[in-house]
């Protein structure tokens, strides 16, 4: 699965960062989400489930796709 991130919808609330079990997600200097080490992602889907801004979609494929 590939993790698609809609960065332009991110408000930097930190919910995904807090709940990511592998600490893959971090906020950049502008307070927006990005992945630090996508290879550690276990595709648990917690970010997709918990993000109140609909930023994450697990799609077929591999790695990360930022839009």
């Amino acid at each position, binding site marked *: 699965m590939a993790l698609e991130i809609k960065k332009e919808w991110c*408000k930097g609330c930190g919910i995904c960062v*807090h*709940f990511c079990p592998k600490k893959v997600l971090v906020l950049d200097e502008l307070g927006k989400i990005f992945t630090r080490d996508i290879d550690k992602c276990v595709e648990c889907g917690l970010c*997709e489930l*918990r993000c109140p801004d*609909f930023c994450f*979609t697990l799609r077929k494929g591999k790695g990360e796709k930022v839009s």
Partner: protein
Amino acid sequence: MEQSVEKLLRTKHLAHIWCPGCGNGTVLAATVRAIEHLGLDQDKTVIVSGIGCSSRASGYMNFDTLHTAHGRALTFATGIKLARPELTVIVLTGDGDATAIGGNHFIHAARRNIDLTTIVFNNGIYGMTGGQYSPLTPTGSYASTAPYGHIERPFDIAKLAIAAGATYVARGSAYHTKMLADVIIKGIEHTGFSVIDAVTQCPTSFGRKNKMGAPAAMLEWQRDNAVTVEAAAKLTPEQLAGKFIIGELHRSEAPEYVAEYDKVIARAQKGAKK
């Protein structure tokens, strides 16, 4: 957002207007997941909301939607359901919208047992207008209109709904988002007036005033203070103090208003023929 529910959202209107970490997006997501699970037809499902931050949710949903007047979502929804009983009508409302200005409509919709599903985005505060206390603000908490602590007792919205005649009542939370979607599914499936109390976080107006920390900490507060119906049955009232009970709280059968009204129409038409 899962691919399967993307079509149920008006993604061109995103990002939404809610504050960072606001739980309204999570309750909205649970609602569309429930609708997707049920496979409801987008052209036969109507979403009606009142006024408030939470009531903005209807605008992001790709259905026939109606954003109405403060406290009056249930009145518009009643009209739609009576005119077009074949439609599934879902009402989205805030705790202030539903139990303060709209409290009267709430109890009477419950009393009539009209086949609507009402999802109350319960953040315990008037979010949109600056954090005034609502009828669901817990005693002792702080609000912009309760700077020394709130002295009023809140309604227990579930007990209020049950006493007024609602035939399906359940509670979930933004943290327990899968369970929330599950009770929304059951509420929509139920014929009669269904109330889903969706406990959610307002980091800006409630969280800051009550020193609850970051949005993630507010979600953990929900995790740590929710007790399932099954667990609550084994606890004393003292042990349950300050906790909230999640799950299916009430289910009963009673005549449904639109069906009863149809009988009146049939009787009246028979009378006219004589």
